[in-house]
């Protein structure tokens, strides 16, 4: 970048009205020094990320072309077989589908509840800070803790939900919340929503603070009711936040591992298997390392496509 006043390295300001056509050796040297200083500052972080993350990506890409049990020295080159197998693998599709359901439900319900809570917290009244703290609290809890607490709540025989249902005469609705193939995935989704709604709420809350008072007052004068104002005045003003939450939620959905593994380990059957748990199972429990690498490659491609899509949309929105 050319500025009117540049600083030489010794700190003396030098006036450069017109950028010189010929590369000035002094300037070149100064530029090199600037680069070296900059690189030195960012090097530890960049190198660390390359060593752990980018090395891992290449490692996956390489091993996705091999059949390897992770134990023997022998790795058999199989070309694209692992990928071909994946596209014929019903368990892979099931994991993909579960990840999709998980993501869509988490993102939408979380945003919905978060929006309403943030809106309610914006009203004047007692204990608003306290309420905000309560809703945000699960964000800091370990999934291990939440998994265990919910296993008590969901338990078929003695769980709080079923006991409550039986007590009010709705015993027919009692479910084996984590043990029924048709229900377990949704039960886990609910735990996830419980944990992360607070973060959606905070983001909406902060964004609402930025909406001008006049907007609310105008809506009030126009006679828009409480909920009507939320839907037709507030929500449209929060498009950016909604978009951010959607992207974060999709990425979070792809990353989901802990809460599923802790609650059901992907079972019963493979009814709650998501991509991450499937990958873990294949690599760490079934010793199919080559295949797991191929899964990782696909997972990576999905994540990168979403990121690409995000940057495209964000550019348009700006």
């Amino acid at each position, binding site marked *: 970048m050319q500025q009117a006043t540049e*600083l030489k390295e*010794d*700190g003396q*300001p030098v006036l450069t009205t017109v950028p010189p056509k010929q590369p000035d050796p002094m300037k070149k040297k100064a530029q090199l020094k*600037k680069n*070296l*200083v*900059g*690189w030195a*500052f*960012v090097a*530890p*972080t*960049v190198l*660390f*990320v390359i*060593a*752990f*993350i980018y090395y*891992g*990506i290449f*490692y*996956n890409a390489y091993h996705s072309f091999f059949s390897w049990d992770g134990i023997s020295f022998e790795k058999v080159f199989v070309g694209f077989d692992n990928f071909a197998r994946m596209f014929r693998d019903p368990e892979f599709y099931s994991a993909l589908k579960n990840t999709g359901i998980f993501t869509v439900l988490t993102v939408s319900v979380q945003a919905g509840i978060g929006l309403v*809570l943030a809106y*309610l*917290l914006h*009203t004047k*009244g007692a204990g608003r800070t306290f*309420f905000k*703290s*309560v*809703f*945000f*609290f699960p964000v*800091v809890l*370990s999934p*291990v803790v939440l998994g*265990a*607490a*919910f296993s008590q*709540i969901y338990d078929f025989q003695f769980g709080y939900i079923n006991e409550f249902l039986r007590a009010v005469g709705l015993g027919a609705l009692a479910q084996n919340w984590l043990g029924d193939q048709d229900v377990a995935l949704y039960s886990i989704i609910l735990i996830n929503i*419980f944990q992360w709604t607070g973060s959606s709420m*905070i*983001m909406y809350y*902060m*964004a609402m603070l930025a909406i001008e008072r006049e907007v609310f007052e105008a809506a009030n004068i126009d006679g828009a009711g409480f909920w009507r104002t939320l839907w037709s005045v507030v929500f449209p003003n929060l498009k*950016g936040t909604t978009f*951010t939450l959607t992207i*974060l939620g999709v*990425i979070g959905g792809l990353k989901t*591992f*802990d809460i599923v*593994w802790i609650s059901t380990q992907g079972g019963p059957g493979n009814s709650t298997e998501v991509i*991450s*748990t499937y990958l*873990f199972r294949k*690599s*760490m429990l079934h010793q199919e390392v080559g295949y797991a690498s191929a899964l990782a490659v696909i*997972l990576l491609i999905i*994540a990168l496509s979403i990121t690409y899509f995000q940057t495209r949309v964000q550019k348009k929105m700006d």
Partner: protein
Amino acid sequence: MEIQTKKGRWLTNIGLSLMAVIWLFPIFVMFKESLRVNGFSNYIATLQNPNFPQFVFNSFIVAFFMITISITFLAFAAFGFSKLQFAGKRLLFNLVLAGLMLPVASLIVPLFFTLRTLDGLNSYWGLIGAEVAFFLPFGLMLIKSYFDELPNELMEAAHIDGATTLQIFYKIMMPLAKPALATATIYAFLNSWNEYLLVLTFMTDPAKQTVTMAPTFFTEALGGDPGKLYASLVLISLPTMVFYIFFQRFLQKGMTSGAVK
């Protein structure tokens, strides 16, 4: 915003209270279960089990080094990316930031097998290294966005006074960046303390496992004693609860600054 009608105000308060009860319920369940049958002696029994202090000790060691390394790296990098001009800046920044999108599970194969060759399984440094690597992208975004808001004039003035870049970083920027570094530290602690998948993958030896493995251990070792299991859960949540009570403002702020690029 003010709600006009009295009925509206009541409904809002009731709605919020109801939601709060639901939100507090799982935590209530945890406490209640931890007192089951033997009351507080569940806690004493858990603390006296020699494995439990070991889990806590391991967690603190890992968290301490994870925080020290990542915050040091990040302070330099965030300053560099925000305030210095150098070739390849954008590319390198995006290279780090792309790490945000990567599911940890997609990297357990390379991490596990590489650490195995380097004798890094069941060792603190293997786990610490991986935790640092996965935290750096988020931490960088968090701290850099804070540096971006600090005026450049401060730096330019110091430069004219003859300060070197390192002096500017250390004497001017670091004191100003304290709130961002504090926020990042809190997030780093929570990430490390709650880390599950990496510990599950790398640490097969209970002597090296962290607190998130304590419940599995207690379920297997004490089979059929849920009281102690839940006591251990409450105990491992205590540090995060304390952090939350004191630092929730930082956490809430970090959530938004981290998300808006």
